[in-house]
């Protein structure tokens, strides 16, 4: 086996959950959910600044191919676009007239469709849709977006990620209920944006499954998995597209939440509030932007 990666703290541990790591070409943006803020870390100088406040518990962050930044505002119950210096713009907050629940993470395709996981149970479902699902926000000619339900078999979806050819949507089903599933699923993406029946790529059994994940330039799925309560612990688990595990790297945090590459360095956020970095992994990311 290859040696384990060595992780170091890029920043002192914040003490409350970090998530949503996204690289804009110069700075690593990430969310600090409980503090309702987006932070920006400059790997060249090691400086960190508060990029945005009042983010309504923003969680997943991602760029579209034009470099526009989108966020899952869990408590805001919306997908928002964050333009520099401007208040967040609502992209979608409803599905069929009812409020969505709590968006968690998102993946964007080259056509600008924003697929996101929406979870019941993270918020009071009053006045909202009565289920959890993957939903897409599909851009219209007039600049608005229409929300479309894309999965009908999710109970607690979390991270999601397109394959390099955008023909598979990888979805983390991460429901902690004893009789529920913690799985990595691969849904075929149809031309019209609908999803076919999923293939089960991996099952985590009773242990914590995937939170966030990112794609390597080799098409591998680099996933944040595990916890301190059971199983092999917090780690980065690397899957081939058919679900084969090709490497596991234990993390110094108990529960890694999300990750992204900056060059060959992998940055990892955590429930405890880390921004960790594993340098010179020998892998690079496959990103739509930059």
């Amino acid at each position, binding site marked *: 086996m290859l040696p384990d990666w060595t992780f170091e703290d890029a920043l002192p541990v914040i003490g409350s959950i970090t998530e949503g790591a996204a690289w804009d070409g110069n700075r690593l943006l990430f969310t600090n959910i409980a503090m309702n803020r987006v932070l920006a870390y400059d790997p060249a100088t090691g400086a960190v600044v508060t990029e945005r406040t009042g983010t309504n518990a923003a969680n997943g962050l991602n760029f579209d191919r034009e470099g526009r930044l989108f966020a899952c505002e869990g408590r805001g119950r919306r997908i928002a676009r964050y333009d520099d210096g401007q208040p967040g713009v609502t992209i979608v907050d409803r599905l069929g007239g009812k409020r969505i629940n709590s968006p968690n993470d998102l993946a964007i395709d080259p056509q600008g469709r924003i697929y996101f996981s929406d979870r019941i149970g993270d918020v009071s479902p009053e006045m909202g849709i009565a289920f959890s699902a993957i939903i897409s926000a599909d851009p219209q000619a007039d600049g608005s977006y229409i929300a479309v339900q894309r999965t009908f078999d999710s109970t607690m979806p979390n991270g999601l990620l397109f394959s390099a050819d955008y023909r598979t949507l990888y979805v983390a089903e991460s429901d902690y209920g004893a009789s529920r599933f913690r*799985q990595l699923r691969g849904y075929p993406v149809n031309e019209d944006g609908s999803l076919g029946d999923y293939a*089960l790529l991996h*099952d985590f*059994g009773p242990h914590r499954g995937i939170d966030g994940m990112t794609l390597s330039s080799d098409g591998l799925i680099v996933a944040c998995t595990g916890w301190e309560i059971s199983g*092999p612990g917090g780690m980065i688990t690397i899957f081939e597209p*058919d679900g084969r595990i090709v*490497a596991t790297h234990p993390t110094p945090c108990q529960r890694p939440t999300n990750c992204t590459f900056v060059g060959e360095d992998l940055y990892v956020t955590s429930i405890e509030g880390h921004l960790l970095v594993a340098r010179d992994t020998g892998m690079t990311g496959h990103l739509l932007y930059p």
Partner: protein
Amino acid sequence: MPMPMKDWTFETIAQRDSLTEGPAWDGAGLLYSHCAADLVMKWDPATEESSLWREYTGGGNGMVFDRTGRLFVCEGKNRRIAEYVAGEPTRVIVDNWQGLPFNEPNDLAVDVRGRIWFTDPNYGGRLSSIPTEQVYRADPQGDGSYVAVRVTEDMRRPNGILISPSEDRLFLADSPNGYRAHPRLVSYPINGDGSLGEQSVLHDFGWGRGIDGMCWNADGDIVATAGNERYGPGPMIYVFSTNGRVLETHRTPSDTPTNCLFGGPSYDELFVTYGTGLVHRVRDSGLRGRPAR
């Protein structure tokens, strides 16, 4: 590609016309079962040939040497555990639990006290003898006979079995082969009296084929055969740490790997048997095992 693990080289050293199993290294060569033909073959590294070592094995499947060099075998069709001594008639170790013949003993492990732990699944549509597929321990008695005790009640279809080197944990493949059956690698603590504690799940194979046979390497990790071409990531050798972490995976060039064991003069050659009837040797795994004795 940084990819993680270097590929292994699988050389074919033997080929039968149906499933091979039960690799056991006798210090000089590899014994393996050709189950459907009721044969044990022996592969000799000097000649690189296999020859008949024993016949009429009654569906002999898993085999293991204990520390003193005694060879024990799961005779599936004969529904019993047996001992083979070259040139001598088969000795029956246990053939019943509370008067009922076993279903189809499959694989086994022997502890330092000479207790033989074995799995008793029921494959192939045979009528069950015992209406549940569980794990047993055959305890040697003062007179040289053995008495079987059932040690699990919550397995679905046990297959491969390992005792930890410190003999405080039992590792089992719970490998039902139904539709989306979620086969698992599980473990149980072994209590001082030989009973087992509560089951923990180490790995879940989802909709794929779970573990058949497995062995220890010298680092105390589990080397396991699992998977097939029908569903999931395919036929593979897995290396697990005992907390369930997947340390390595290696795709096998033949389908349905059934068991594996380290042998060779330095115990650094991994032998793999298959449902296809092949037997492979891997000499560049970078891993080594340890002798049974």
